[in-house]
């Protein structure tokens, strides 16, 4: 059991369409994070959650929204996908706000055409 899974692993979508990425954890961790990883920029925080229905914006939140209705699921939605949102998206979980490390999912490679 991986503890954290992301779906889908790969997705190609058209500009202007909504897209939802899912992160599912079985660790019962309180904190969940969505990052995007781009060449030259590293990992940048999009949104994070510190509990069910408790979410906040990160560094690059424009054009993204999140929801967390259950401890185990954290959804990232691109309201209207743009080519600049082509990226690799990673979900991470932590039991202690990250002080002792994150566990990352395997990522979703999203291409917006």
């Amino acid at each position, binding site marked *: 059991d991986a503890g954290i899974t992301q779906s889908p692993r790969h997705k190609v979508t058209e500009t202007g369409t909504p897209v939802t990425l899912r992160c599912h954890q079985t660790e019962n961790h309180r*904190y969940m*994070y969505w*990052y995007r990883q781009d060449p*030259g*920029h*590293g*990992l940048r*925080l999009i949104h*994070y959650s*510190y509990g069910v229905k408790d979410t*906040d914006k*990160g*560094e690059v939140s424009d054009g993204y929204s999140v929801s967390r209705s259950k401890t185990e699921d954290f959804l990232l939605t691109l309201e209207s996908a743009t080519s600049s949102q082509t990226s690799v998206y*990673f979900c*991470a979980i*932590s039991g202690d*706000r*990250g*002080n*002792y*490390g*994150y*566990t*990352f*999912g*395997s*990522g979703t490679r999203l291409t917006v055409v």
Partner: protein
Amino acid sequence: TQLLEQSPQFLSIQEGENLTVYCNSSSVFSSLQWYRQEPGEGPVLLVTVVTGGEVKKLKRLTFQFGDARKDSSLHITAAQPGDTGLYLCAGDAGGGADGLTFGKGTHLIIQP
């Protein structure tokens, strides 16, 4: 916003050589972590250092946290092709729920 600068950005060396990767900031961190990422996968935690001056060893990898808790280094002895990957440092500034600040990473290639 706290920034973590990693150097070098790219490093390609021969198997058996030693290397050091640096992670520097002007900010103080309550803890600092190192991750390794392979192509197509998420980063995997290698180590967390918490105390200024702390040194941790993981087989051929030695991690050090600076006395002032603003910088860290990763030293690999007798590098092997299996060490190839992207190495990321990440710092926790403490306090907020938004967690870690990541450096941009060091791409390491160990050639046989």
